[in-house]
């Protein structure tokens, strides 16, 4: 008459030595699209970084350009004897080199603006969430106000005032983006604030800045990482758009958008290569980053199980 208490099926043995990152990485690698995208990104990144080493020509060095080289179709010969695999533009710039250097600018602007805006926005967001009260309300009102205004218009107006230049573009993009990160981080911070470890940190009488930046912020990072990754693509796209519209980087340091703009005028006459190839490069970068970011979001989202 033994009243053996029921033993439910034992929980699946959890290997606690397996690190969180490794599970995430394994998850990430399960999507072929994301892996391909990541590979493409790495290749492009290397190409951009090492461009000065193997690009046939430095397209920014006006001395190297020969106006007689202009409008050479892909595969044609340059005056110097080298082959312009992707053709040349109306200034005689070799498109391949121009694209590689343009990639540098696009990636630099995208990554740096996101990093800076992220740092500023995340700090503001987490501080506002932690302090709460009137400060938080005012900050979030400003954030909402700015976010309700379309980014492109804001960037346009800022650059119209600042003028052209890579540094000014980065500044404009930072101003346009910070609010988005502030709102994202503030949302996570509000949730994390309730958790016990924050209470514990406070009980230890740690200084406020330590609690905020040492404990609260690191735990708000996962959604921020996803958002920031995709935002790099948006920042690159936005810079390309601004350059296309003629308010971005200067003509002497063309980014991919600038190159496309130059080629726009010749599109209807059949000289397609000035716009198309930079366009393809731009699209590959943007799509690759988006695919990676999308996969990252699915991997880091605890509510989804594939």
């Amino acid at each position, binding site marked *: 008459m033994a009243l053996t208490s029921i033993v439910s099926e034992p929980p699946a043995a959890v290997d606690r030595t397996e690190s969180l990152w490794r599970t995430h990485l394994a998850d990430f690698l399960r999507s072929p699209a994301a892996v391909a995208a990541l590979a493409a990104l790495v290749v492009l990144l290397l190409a951009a970084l090492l461009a000065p080493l193997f690009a046939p020509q430095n397209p920014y060095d006006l001395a190297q350009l020969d106006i007689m080289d202009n409008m050479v179709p892909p595969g044609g010969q340059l005056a110097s004897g080298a082959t312009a695999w992707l053709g040349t533009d109306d200034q005689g710039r070799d498109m391949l080199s121009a694209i590689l250097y343009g990639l540098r600018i696009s990636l630099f602007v995208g990554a740096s603006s996101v990093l800076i805006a992220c740092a500023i926005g995340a700090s503001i967001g987490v501080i506002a969430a932690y302090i709460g009260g009137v400060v938080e309300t005012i900050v979030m009102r400003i954030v909402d106000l700015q976010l309700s205004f379309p980014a492109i218009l804001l960037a346009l107006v800022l650059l119209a005032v600042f003028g052209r230049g890579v540094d000014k573009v980065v500044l404009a993009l930072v101003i346009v983006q910070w609010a988005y990160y502030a709102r994202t981080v503030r949302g996570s911070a509000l949730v994390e604030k309730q958790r016990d470890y924050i209470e514990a940190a406070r009980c230890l009488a740690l200084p406020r800045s330590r609690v905020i930046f040492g404990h609260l912020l690191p735990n708000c990072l996962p959604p921020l990482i996803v958002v920031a990754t995709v935002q790099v693509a948006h920042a690159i*796209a936005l810079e390309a758009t601004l350059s296309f519209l003629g308010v971005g980087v200067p003509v002497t340091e063309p980014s991919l958008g600038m190159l496309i703009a130059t080629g726009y005028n010749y599109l*209807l006459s*059949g000289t397609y290569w000035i716009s198309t190839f930079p366009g393809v490069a731009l699209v590959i970068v943007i799509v690759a980053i988006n695919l990676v970011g999308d996969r990252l979001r699915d991997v880091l989202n605890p509510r989804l199980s594939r």
Partner: protein
Amino acid sequence: MLVYVIRRLGQSLLVVLAMSTLVFLAIYAVGNPIDILANPDTDQAERDAIAHRLGLDLPLWAQFGRFLWNALHGDLGRSFVYNESAVSVILQRLPATMELALTALVFSILIGVPLGILAGLKSNSWVGRSIMTGSILGFSLPNFWIGLMLILLFAVELRWLPAGGRGATVSVLGVPLALLTIDGLKHLILPALTLALYKAALVIRIAQAGTREVMLQDYIRFARAKGLSATRIVGVHVLKNIMIPVVTVIGLELGSMIAFAVVTETVFAYPGMGKLLIDSIGRLDRPIVVAYLVLAVVIFAGINLVVDLLYAAIDPRVRLSEVKG
């Protein structure tokens, strides 16, 4: 319901006022208003006259009052290039941009909702997955590049549609509309499609997520238990429930659609407000830029208001919760 409308109206007015204050401060307090609002070709005497007319010798708060007064009368400066009131120059181009934005809106719903629902119903099949991947492309690809590719394909290669410009217009109540002519429609298709793609991609994602969520609900099971056809279940029960988030997003994005029209109009040489803005920036016609900013704020506030009201019309719970207070 009326209380709700009035309250929202008040909020919108407040926002417009706040933004106008910012614009005012940017011009009059931070910048040099003479540089911004006076034609650089004028001589000193004329500039003094303009300064007096703008009331620049008055204290700041009085200037603000003047600014608001003028703004309410539609006077936000004179365009250097067109030598007309900046506001009227912009308003002349407004119908073109509105046609473009609204057509794009319609396209984005017509494309996005069915595809999104399909992706939600078949989320585990290749159909659903390819639609979702396609949607990623839709909102990550830069607007201007899509436009260029469409021009290359449809205008240069296939020669089916024109590469730019606005078509023939018909005057309705004094407003020239291109929607009512075949030629006008042909000119609208490519730009509207370009503009719509970004929003369509967003709509697809929202419709898909909404559909997946709704299909799990009890009321769908009850609807099936009633013996309703799949068409009815999807077309009525699912659709009405997902329209709420869709309308929200579309509404909020309509403002940015008007903003992005700036790019699309430039690519297609479409004579709307957006192209005017870009040209004016390039030509340093600053009064137009200022006037555009203020008008943009008014339009966005108005759009948010309409969206909120539409929301209340579709979702009865919102209306009644307002009544209960």
